[in-house]
């Protein structure tokens, strides 16, 4: 039942969408694909679904060459980021549609559709048309339709991106429950958000410019991002990357004065390198630290992201809670050097700070 992709490559009108994608997607596991917009996430899903032809590569499942199987004979369900339902059918018929196409008995159809709608909390809405539902409810219908089929492959393309924040929070939590009931399906879920990728995925696949740049458990990827690019994609706000040099056991961040290497970086070879620091490992202080100017303040959830410029390096400081920080203010920023990541000048991970939290 493993879905095996080898060397999938796709370019449309000279633009590369997928480059040499090789993956083994095992049943019963949830894969979250994280990447920026246009990283190739949607293309990958469309290829897995059979909606998009590829230029090269193979895709097999149970020994079948899936690329030879047309969409309508594959056993794949998909949830789009727009709320796609059949507008002319009511909620129940929407969910029943694929079941009827699969020639299930009337009783089976009724049972499965009812059960699936109950799971997403829409038991009281069977007779409504999708247009009479809120965005969140419409997406629940789409999800119920996908779940009712019990497909071998379940694909979700940024299903929460068009919902408002509180709904996202709520559905994110519900998805965990819903996915735990999908048995031996392969679930692939694309997102741009760290929280979704970390919370929902058994494994995280990081994509950038059509390539897979890292795969692993959420903790593996988050705690040891293979490159600076991965470090920036998997962190929200993106990890601060600071050019620096190492000379004789001392390090220098950009133009700042040289300091002793922290213990965990002791083995670093001399030469130019890049240091990475999560926004959570910077903080504002009233008494000591590096002088920075506030250029922008963003609030996300319960966190305040303070964008500062320190010695010409733009950095983001993440504060817990919501704080009123004014633009243009001069602030003092303290850096936790024991939390520094070291990357080579080319951007490959050299040393990551140790994590107590690995599961």
């Amino acid at each position, binding site marked *: 039942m493993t879905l095996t992709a080898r060397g999938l490559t796709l370019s449309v009108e000279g633009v590369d969408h997928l480059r040499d994608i090789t993956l083994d997607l095992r049943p019963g596991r949830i894969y979250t694909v994280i990447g920026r*917009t246009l990283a190739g996430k949607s293309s990958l899903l469309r290829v897995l679904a059979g909606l998009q032809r590829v230029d090269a590569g193979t895709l097999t499942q149970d020994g079948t060459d899936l690329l030879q199987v047309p969409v309508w004979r594959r056993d794949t369900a998909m949830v789009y980021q727009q709320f796609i339902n059949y507008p002319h059918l009511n909620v129940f018929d929407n969910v029943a549609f694929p079941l009827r196409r699969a020639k299930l008995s009337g009783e089976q159809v009724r049972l499965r559709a009812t059960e699936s709608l109950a799971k997403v909390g829409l038991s009281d809405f069977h007779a409504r048309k999708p247009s009479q539902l809120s965005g969140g409810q419409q997406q629940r219908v789409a999800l119920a339709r996908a779940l009712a089929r019990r497909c071998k492959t379940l694909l979700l393309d940024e299903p929460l991106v068009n919902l408002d924040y509180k709904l996202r929070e709520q559905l994110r939590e519900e998805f965990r429950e819903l996915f735990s009931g999908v048995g031996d399906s392969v679930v692939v879920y694309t997102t741009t958000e760290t929280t979704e990728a970390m919370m929902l995925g058994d494994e995280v696949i990081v994509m950038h410019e059509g390539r897979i740049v890292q795969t692993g458990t959420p903790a593996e990827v988050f705690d040891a991002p293979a490159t600076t690019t991965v470090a920036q994609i998997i962190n929200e706000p993106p990890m601060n990357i600071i050019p620096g040099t190492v000379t004789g056991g001392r390090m220098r961040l950009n133009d700042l004065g040289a300091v002793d290497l922290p213990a965990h970086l002791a083995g670093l070879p001399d030469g130019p390198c890049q240091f990475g620091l999560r926004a959570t490992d910077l903080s504002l202080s009233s008494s000591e630290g590096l002088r920075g100017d506030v250029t922008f303040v*963003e609030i996300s959830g319960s966190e305040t992201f303070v964008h500062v410029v320190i010695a010409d390096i733009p950095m983001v400081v993440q504060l817990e809670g*919501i704080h009123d920080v004014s633009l243009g203010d001069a602030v003092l920023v303290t850096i936790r050097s024991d*939390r520094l990541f070291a990357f080579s000048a080319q951007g490959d991970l050299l040393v990551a700070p140790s994590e107590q939290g690995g599961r």
Partner: protein
Amino acid sequence: MAQLELLDVGHCYVPGEGEDRWALKPLTVTFEAGKTYALVGPSGCGKTTLLNILSGLVSPTRGRVLFDGADMTRRSTRERNIAQVFQFPVIYTSMTVYQNLAFPLECRNWDSRRIDAKVRTVAEALGLGDRLKEPARKLNADDKQLISLGRGLVRDDVAALLMDEPLTVIDPQLKFSLRRRIREISEQFRPTVIYVTHDQYEAMSFVEELLVMKDGQVMQQGTPEELFESPRSAYVGYFIGSPSMNFLDVTQDGSGVWLAGQRLAMSWQPPAARVPAEASGAGAAQAGVLQAGIRPEYVRLASAPGPNTFPARLQAVRDHGPLRVLHVEIGGQRLALKLAREAGVPHGDTLLVELPRAKVLPYVGGQLATVVAG
């Protein structure tokens, strides 16, 4: 820029409807000149009605609208002299960037030298200084939206800038830069801005004060920090912050407040004599319930028993990346708390959590019990 005042303004779309069903229940608000405000709330909360009353598209069922003290209630949109930015960029596709920005001034017969200076200043601020000659239709969506904004900024005499979900059609990747631009521009030009959005975090990222609305009422007005630190109602506590504020049912007797059989100290004591339950509707049963509210950010894991520490059972751990959200249970009630990633996942499912006294707020019937009634 003008100060905008709404005096006892209310609106209903169905004439003769009971006041409790009005789209906007009578309220009095002052928007100070040069400050930025956001109206936030779920769809149907009345925020768009309020905006339309300010712009003159809707004439309120009752109350008065004042701009710098002058009564504007029955004046048309044009007479109110406001600039608006809508969800979709409104630009003249046949014109260049320059012509787009100059158009509102040409319509007001400014002389060309004055127009030129003003257009260049604004274009510079928008970051479009070197693209003035380009046809406007060639710009991407966020630059187009900047031009819509710029057309409001070129006029010195605009009373206020009203923005209705201006980032809706903007690609998520571009939202950040556009948000930052708009914030910088409003710092530079200091217009009175009323910004409408359903995204509370987007709003908090660039206004000075928020008005959280629900069911046609303003639930709370304040800075983002105020809304976060002391939400005046359980709704605001839920709406602002992620995860939402925790609310735990507690009991009160002569000796104090009790949670799960233990004493709970609060930042201030709730009024002993409870506000009597309002004798109407289903809310009556809820009206007198006393709850303790605390943000997940402020709940701590404790290593040893102490004041305000409670034994809790670990129910679930959610990995959010740099931090984890722990769902625990105290005496059958759910509580979320945030834990830094480096703290690791606690061993075993029995924990001790501390609810710091200074951060626990009393709520009676879903309202912050700030005023001692009776």
